[in-house]
């Protein structure tokens, strides 16, 4: 509809106020992808050994668990919730798989299946407490962070499990053909495609955004808020469990602190990728670019003999800068918008602005 003649009824949505090319090119996702490309090209040409074949292999192997867990985490954060328990679920899954194979003579597929079921159960507990009991997810998942880690520690004690079947270890460490991509890229790509499909091209995914923008409005427009959240937590649990099996096979070890601290890395990567912590905004491509950017930076810095200290500072500063820049850009844009239409009063609705206190 072209309603240029009736300015009184015209509503301007912040997201659609600009021309198409600006919307496509000047957004967080494009910026993130551009930053990733720049960082990669720079490192490829300037950092010694970065162009080597093994660099990309190790980069992807190192980032694989974070890449995996970031997929469901994106959806969870888009609904305005959070899941801090992913790393503990990863640890629990690694320990369960390891113990079943080591002490009970399970084959790897059987053990991994049990681990995935454990992941589903872990996600179910989170999801029920958050979605159906209505508890704040930050508090719930801090609790389950301790609980799942605790169960893993309780099961394994001070032991460290190693000696996984060589056949499966080789499979995990194998390359695709003769390329420098590890085999784990295949499940990552498949899962990423599935999650992108789910988030961006299904009614379920639209519901996820709607919940993040306004859970109550989503409920009244027919989105099953509680079931959606439950499904997302279960997905988060099962993908984390899968990452746990990968972790176990890759390092051939499971112990009490397998994967500790990964949860904050995953969340940092997701937020860096442009997902708003308030929910309702962000997309998977940005998140993937964000995770890979962290991977490229750490591997480039490591090749330059810089310690993990600089990498941590860079991640931290990048995270802070990325949110501040979005916030500043939004404010500049809204001020400019206000200047442009000085006479009209109704301010454009601010996307995702509001507190996280959206208790259904």
């Amino acid at each position, binding site marked *: 509809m072209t309603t240029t003649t009736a300015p009184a009824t015209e509503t301007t949505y912040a997201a659609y106020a600009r021309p198409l090319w600006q919307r496509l090119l000047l957004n967080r996702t494009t910026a993130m992808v551009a930053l990733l490309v720049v960082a990669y090209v720079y490192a490829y040409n300037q950092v010694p050994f970065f162009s080597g074949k093994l660099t990309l292999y190790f980069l992807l192997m190192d980032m694989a668990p974070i890449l995996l867990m970031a997929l469901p985490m994106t959806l969870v954060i888009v609904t305005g919730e959070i899941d801090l328990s992913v790393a503990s679920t990863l640890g629990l899954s690694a320990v369960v798989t390891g113990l079943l194979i080591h002490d009970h003579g399970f084959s790897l597929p059987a053990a991994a299946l049990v681990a995935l079921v454990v992941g589903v159960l872990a996600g179910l507990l989170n999801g029920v407490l958050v979605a159906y009991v209505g*508890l*704040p997810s930050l508090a719930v998942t801090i609790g389950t962070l301790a609980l799942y*880690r605790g169960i893993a520690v309780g099961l394994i004690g001070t032991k460290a499990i190693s000696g996984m079947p060589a056949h499966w270890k080789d499979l995990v460490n194998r390359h695709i053909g003769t390329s420098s991509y590890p085999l784990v890229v295949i499940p990552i790509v498949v899962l990423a495609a599935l999650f992108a499909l789910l988030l961006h091209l299904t009614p379920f995914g639209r519901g996820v955004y709607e919940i993040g923008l306004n859970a109550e409005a989503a409920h009244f427009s027919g989105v099953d808020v509680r079931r959606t959240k439950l499904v997302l937590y279960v997905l988060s649990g099962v993908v984390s469990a899968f990452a746990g099996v990968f972790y176990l096979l890759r390092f051939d070890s499971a112990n009490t602190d397998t994967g500790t601290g990964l949860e*904050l890395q995953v969340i940092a990567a997701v937020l860096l990728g442009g997902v708003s912590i308030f929910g309702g905004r962000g997309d998977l491509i940005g998140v993937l670019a964000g995770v890979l950017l962290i991977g490229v930076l750490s591997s480039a810095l490591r090749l330059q003999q810089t310690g993990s*200290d600089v990498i941590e500072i860079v991640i*931290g500063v990048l*995270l802070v800068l990325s949110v501040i820049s979005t916030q500043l850009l939004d404010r500049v844009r809204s001020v400019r918008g206000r200047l442009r239409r000085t006479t009209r009063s109704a301010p454009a609705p601010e996307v995702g602005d509001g507190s996280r206190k959206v208790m259904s």
Partner: protein
Amino acid sequence: MSTTELLVEPSRVSPVQRAVVGAFRSREFAIAAVLVLVVAAATFKSSSFVFSHDGWRDLLLSPSLLLLVAIGEMVVIVTRNVDLSVGSTLGLSAYLTGRLFTDHPGIPILLVFVIGLVFGALLGCINGLLVTVFQVPALVITLGTMYAFRGALVHWAGSKQIYASNLPDSFQNLGTEQILTIPVLTIVGLAVLVLVGYYLWNARGGRELYAIGSDPEAAGLYGLPVARRVFGAFVVCGALAGLAGVVQDARYSTATSSTGQGLELQAVAAVVIGGVAIFGGSGSVYGAAIGAFLLITINAALPILGIPEFWQNAVVGVLILGSICLDRFLAQRRTHRLIESRDDA
């Protein structure tokens, strides 16, 4: 107030009775009861848990570190923010303390405490400024500064370590010294607790922190200095984490680049167990303090109770989940009561 009409009728129940009943009904009482139960059970199994010199001292001394951090975290959480950088702040301050003693032998201990406090406050300023000036969610900002501060510490300390030999004896003795059988470091923590508790409950600024946490927008519309108060909360939180860094050195006589790692989630856990709503506006700092005591004490008590120490984390998790479920239940009951009393009226 010069109005002659009272807005609220004074209660017919006597103040003393009200205070006693209120104390029994309070959320803090429930958590304190659990703490007493845990201690009693452990003492029943092994009397040295409380009734020996070392047992008594450890019981009081071990939580002093988390106590300080949890108090600061509570002040931030009550404003509906969160500070995830406390662990890194504590680590930086702990290493700074060690360096001060190594590089400037003979530096007065009190001065070191002040420097630790001020240094932590400065780091808190960074968080506070970023959160209030740019109006960015605290969770993201402090997650970023958590990495940045930790990175700075690793950069600074590298693989170097502060050993007991770097610290003067008089400072290390603080870790074990007792006044009336109460360890000095615990007294420091309790003094801070009483100060902060008084401020939050009675001072105007403290009440405003609660108001901001209940509804930041309404608080702003009402004319409360939201940004200034939130900034202040972050500074207090940083300062207490800095102070805790000095305490950590006195207690353990060592500091590395990984000191304080993971403490941020423990602090949040203590606050949540203590009945402070994670979305601000309710709870007391005493609850957070009891939560800190409970978290640490349960770790010490489990092995005595015959539960392998490996299950500690799981118990802590159940405790956190249990306490938020309890909070939810209590809140629902309160709402029902309010609705009933409204319908009756």
